[in-house]
């Protein structure tokens, strides 16, 4: 609001001067209103950094500050603190297969990673700071097709990196580690018949194959010149042909062999002359790690069985157990999935004996550290690096408020007095007596203990700023996070749950908010079963994480095609979920909501969009009856032809409210907004020789099925991001022609008259909106966009733009307003639009996360707070970043530095002075009267 006044003022005052001066001044004004003071850092915001699901891990045994290096599925290389699990340094590599890490190892100076495909990059990272020490890539013909066919071996002493490609023959190619200079390679003379399975057990390569039903182990040295392969039949030990070969990480060339059905693993120590079987066997499921200690090699067996995590230490060569470390620890199986050990290291302790640290990663993407003997030191919930759905919910009311709510809730049942003046009065007296009793009891310490939420401080505050963030992650783990502190309040692991692969999403519905005391809030998660692909549903209380129905997910027995939340609640204030399955059958969950669904069936429509065929179809529930819900196809359009793809379907936020119905023009007339809640933006993309990469955007009314507006762009390609809100659509794409990111805004108006002032109907009078459009240049790459949302929609809208450089830009809608004119007319000036400038400014003051860079943003979630001015923002991706923004500044809150003391002192002073002067005046008047 204030900004617009400033703008108006600026424009009317200086309209004859250069618009640049005006704009510069304007920017200064805006800048003043955005930035953050130094002491406000971290006051309203927090950031949590993650690394992702661990793929490789290595303990640092060289540098003075001990740490553990990890590289992850999210293409991150990081060093974690051994004691706290905090990130010491983190490097984020390229996205997707461009940055897939194939190999990680450490030398005495650097962490080496091999990553990417075409080209494959070899990078060395500084152990302590994580700086890039060197970076070279393999010649382009080195192509990583699969990780099974390519092995890597790092020789620390020679500083060489060996690339071993296992095709029809085994080719070894060494490279100088720091420079990448290719050295003389060789073909390994392995007598291989069938496709073998090979592992690297430094400095040897071991392959196993079955010849005539007998498994044979071949070993050959990688580094030696003219090395000769040695073959060893495993016949007496292992007769089964289905054998698994694994190498045991450590200083000695050691491999383990197990056959299917066998309960044990055999260990083979490889030597120049052949392999030697060790005189003991180990448990099949144990993860093996070698370590050297006091000049002797030891073997660690890490075993997870029935909620216990064991470590068994033994002498490597003899198998004799070393007793003082062999111990087991209770594993927190209720909150973490089954673990697999990633790395382990043992060090002699000061007192005596051994201390072993084991880094493990779990099926639910957590990573943790055990210390033996001792305890679980830390756990990092790396599932939060793959957030797929977010909701923010109000916390429940405090105990005292709940008591008041109760008073009004049970009108019918109390003591025979139900309604009427007298009844209410009696009721009030009774409840206040009860409150008094409660108060006295609580003073004496005899009352009911406070509820769990009250104790944890999880109660609603007066401004509605304290919320619960409910997060669903790609591995099917749910989290409840306190939005003020960022702490995980609860977590729940769901088995066999996967996100919808097409868009990597799960659907989180809020079926009942916390407003309906005593009914607890309820959320539902819709996802896909990992194996069968059927839909699954899980209902839970979002404040405590406790399941509302069954303990685990419920299999629905059909695949979900579309889902929606019913518009009306049932008697328990619960909104049912309407599901359309692949056979176009309708289901409603819970089944008690059936009658609610039937009641509104005549006006309920549901639509589907098929990505592959481009068909959008609408269904009506008109023919439903109390026995069965029926979806009848009533409209159908086909948006794509040939090789076009339907890439996005974006509807408006269901919780959005539009406060202002129109826009006041310069001549004081009103241009009414076209606010159609059923409007959906659909994007199709394709390629043809004339238009090159083209992008079409359709605005489709999904109730009537009419294409309201359509627009086409030539030479435009992904990344495409869309924001759809109120009466406007904003989308960005990369322009192939100009090689830059462009933002296009469309604004829809009904005209100078409003067709229906009470409610919008898609069926009754379809009007063709007037569309204003404008294009802008954004100097930056966009990775995600979202509009701000506030409770009543009075506050002006800003667009939050996550940029590829890790900043989140807050862009006022006014800057991308399609009505910004090139030539300023007095009417336009009166209306308050700023003159057109093609390039949008990216001032660093409008970066809401200042220097808290957020990496690889997947999305932004915005939620209204109880304050009209304030919008809560959660940016998620590899990192989580939470903050709040006030698009029209905090007009409804006092400034932080507001001097309460001064103003009360002045008020008090004035009261006292006026009292005294009155006294004095009356005394004077009395004296005068006596004169």
């Amino acid at each position, binding site marked *: 609001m204030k900004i617009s006044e400033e703008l108006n003022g600026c424009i009317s005052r200086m309209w*004859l001067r250069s618009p640049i001066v005006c704009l510069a001044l304007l920017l200064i004004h805006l800048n003043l209103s955005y930035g953050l003071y130094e002491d406000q850092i971290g006051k309203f915001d927090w950031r949590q950094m993650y690394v992702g699901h661990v793929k490789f891990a290595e303990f640092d045994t060289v540098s003075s500050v001990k740490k553990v290096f990890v590289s992850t599925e999210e293409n991150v290389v990081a060093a974690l603190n051994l004691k706290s699990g905090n990130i010491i340094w983190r490097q984020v590599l390229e996205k997707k297969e461009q940055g897939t890490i194939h190999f990680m190892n450490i030398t005495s100076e650097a962490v080496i990673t091999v990553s990417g495909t075409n080209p494959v990059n070899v990078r060395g990272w500084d152990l302590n700071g994580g700086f890039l020490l060197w970076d070279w890539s393999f010649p382009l013909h080195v192509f990583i097709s699969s990780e099974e066919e390519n092995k890597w071996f790092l020789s620390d002493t020679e500083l060489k990196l060996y690339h071993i490609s296992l095709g029809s023959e085994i080719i070894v190619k060494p490279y100088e580690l720091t420079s990448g200079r290719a050295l003389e390679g060789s073909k390994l003379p392995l007598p291989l018949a069938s496709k073998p399975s090979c592992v690297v057990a430094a400095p040897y390569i071991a392959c196993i194959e079955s010849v005539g039903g007998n498994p044979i182990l071949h070993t050959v040295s990688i580094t030696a010149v003219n090395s000769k392969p040695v073959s060893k039949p495993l016949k007496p030990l292992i007769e089964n042909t289905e054998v698994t070969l694994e190498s045991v990480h450590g200083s000695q060339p050691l491999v383990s062999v197990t056959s299917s059905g066998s309960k044990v693993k055999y260990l083979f120590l490889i030597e120049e002359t052949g392999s030697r079987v060790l005189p003991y066997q180990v448990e099949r499921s144990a993860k093996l790690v070698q370590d050297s200690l006091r000049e002797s090699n030891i073997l660690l067996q890490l075993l997870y069985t029935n909620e216990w995590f064991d470590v068994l230490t033994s002498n490597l060569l003899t198998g004799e157990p070393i007793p003082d470390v062999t111990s087991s620890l209770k594993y927190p199986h209720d909150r973490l999935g089954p673990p697999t050990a990633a790395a382990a290291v043992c060090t002699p302790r000061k007192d005596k004996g051994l201390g072993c640290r084991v880094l493990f990663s779990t099926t639910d993407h957590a990573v943790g550290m055990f210390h033996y003997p001792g305890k679980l030191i830390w756990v990092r919930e790396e599932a939060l690096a793959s957030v797929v759905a977010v909701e923010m919910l109000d916390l429940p009311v405090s105990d005292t408020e709940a008591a008041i709510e109760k008073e009004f809730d049970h009108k019918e049942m109390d003591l025979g007095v139900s309604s009427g003046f007298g009844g209410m009065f009696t009721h009030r007296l009774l409840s206040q007596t009860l409150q008094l009793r409660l108060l006295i009891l609580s003073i004496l310490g005899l009352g009911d203990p406070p509820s769990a939420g009250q104790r944890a401080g999880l109660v609603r505050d007066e401004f509605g700023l304290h919320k619960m963030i409910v997060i669903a992650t790609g591995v099917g783990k749910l989290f409840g996070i306190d939005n003020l502190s960022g702490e995980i309040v609860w977590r729940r692991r769901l088995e066999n749950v996967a996100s919808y692969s097409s868009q990597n999403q799960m659907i989180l519905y809020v079926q009942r908010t916390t407003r309906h005391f005593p009914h607890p809030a309820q959320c539902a998660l819709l996802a896909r079963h990992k194996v069968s692909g059927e839909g699954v549903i899980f209902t839970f209380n979002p404040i405590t994480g406790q399941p509302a129905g069954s303990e685990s997910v419920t299999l629905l027995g059909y695949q979900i095609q579309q889902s929606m939340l019913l518009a009306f609640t049932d008697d328990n204030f619960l909104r049912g979920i309407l599901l359309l399955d692949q056979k176009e059958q309708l289901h409603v969950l819970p089944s008690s909501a059936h009658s609610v669904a039937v009641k509104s069936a005549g006006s309920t429509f549901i639509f589907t969009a098929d990505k592959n065929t481009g068909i959008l179809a609408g269904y009506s529930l008109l023919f439903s009856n109390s026995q069965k819900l*029926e979806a009848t196809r*009533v409209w*159908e*359009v086909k948006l794509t032809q040939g090789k076009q793809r339907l890439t996005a379907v974006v509807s408006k936020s269901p919780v959005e409210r539009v406060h202002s119905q129109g826009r006041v023009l310069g001549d004081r007339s009103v241009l009414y907004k076209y606010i159609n809640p059923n409007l959906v933006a659909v994007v199709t993309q394709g390629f043809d020789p004339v238009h090159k990469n083209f992008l079409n955007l359709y605005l489709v009314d999904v109730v009537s099925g*009419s294409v309201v507006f359509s627009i086409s762009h030539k030479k435009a390609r992904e990344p495409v991001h869309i924001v759809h809100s109120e009466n406007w659509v904003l989308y960005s794409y990369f322009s192939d022609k100009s090689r830059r990111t462009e933002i296009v805004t469309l604004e829809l108006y009904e005209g100078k008259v409003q067709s229906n002032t009470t409610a919008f109907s898609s069926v*009754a009078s379809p009007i063709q909106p007037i569309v204003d459009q404008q294009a802008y240049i954004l100097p930056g790459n966009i990775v995600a966009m979202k509009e701000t949302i506030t409770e009543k929609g009075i506050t002006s809208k800003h667009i939050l733009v996550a940029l590829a450089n890790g900043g989140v830009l807050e862009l006022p809608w006014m800057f991308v307003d399609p009505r910004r004119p090139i030539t300023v007319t007095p009417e336009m000036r009166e209306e308050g639009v700023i003159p057109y400038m093609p390039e949008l400014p990216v001032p660093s003051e409008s970066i809401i996360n200042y220097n808290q860079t957020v990496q690889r943003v997947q999305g932004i979630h915005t939620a209204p707070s109880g304050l009209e001015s304030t919008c809560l923002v959660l940016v998620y991706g590899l990192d989580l970043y939470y903050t709040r923004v006030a698009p029209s500044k905090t007009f409804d809150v006092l400034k932080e530095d507001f001097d309460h003391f001064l103003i009360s002192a002045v008020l008090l002073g004035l009261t006292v002075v006026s009292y005294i002067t009155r006294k004095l005046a009356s005394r004077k008047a009395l004296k005068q009267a006596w004169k």
Partner: protein
Amino acid sequence: MVRVLCFVLLCFHYAVRTLSFQVDVDYDGLIKIKLQHALDHVPNPDFHDRGTVFVYSIRSGSVSLEQPPLSVSDREKLLKLSEKGGIYRLHSSVQSADGKETSFLTFVKACSLVESHLSDILSVSLDHTGSVIGVSMMTSPGVCEGQLVTKDDIRVFNTTVFVKHMEQGPVPDTAAYIQKLEREKEARERGETKDNRSFLAKYWMYIVPLVIFLVLSGAANPEGAAGGGGGGGGR
């Protein structure tokens, strides 16, 4: 474009009519739309032929329609459908010049069709290459007010066909902006931006504070004197 549509909405007096307006598109062609409708209040009804629409040129939007009048039984069915609050579904199969056939489905409330005396508007939406992506139907007027309609009122369809082209997306208008900047620069160099407002209009922001300051400082002294005098008088 919108103005054209308003025009279309206003004039629907002819049973068969062609619409013509030029659009800046680089495609043209002929399309034939076969219309079939369903008049039964059942989930999966049978569709019966309603007529055919020929769009001779999608660029100019010239259209001809062939729609035989509704039979008596169909009219009864339609009235019944309207009474039941049912929907009128229209299935259209579009045959383009190259023989490709696509089908679409659209609907209106039966009551609004009946009450508009079978005046309907068919919008044929095209994509950027001129292929049809959707055929949607609306009636004019589009509201149900419950007025009495007899069988004779709904004999012939009074259809308007409207071809909706895709708009060309805007691009950032850098050229116009640079021109504007240059014009301003030139104007400044030539001194043409001479401010021809009056002295007061130009410098009011400096004058007003000065005046206020003078008034305030001027008022402060006499007030003090007057206050002193008043006190003396009181005694």
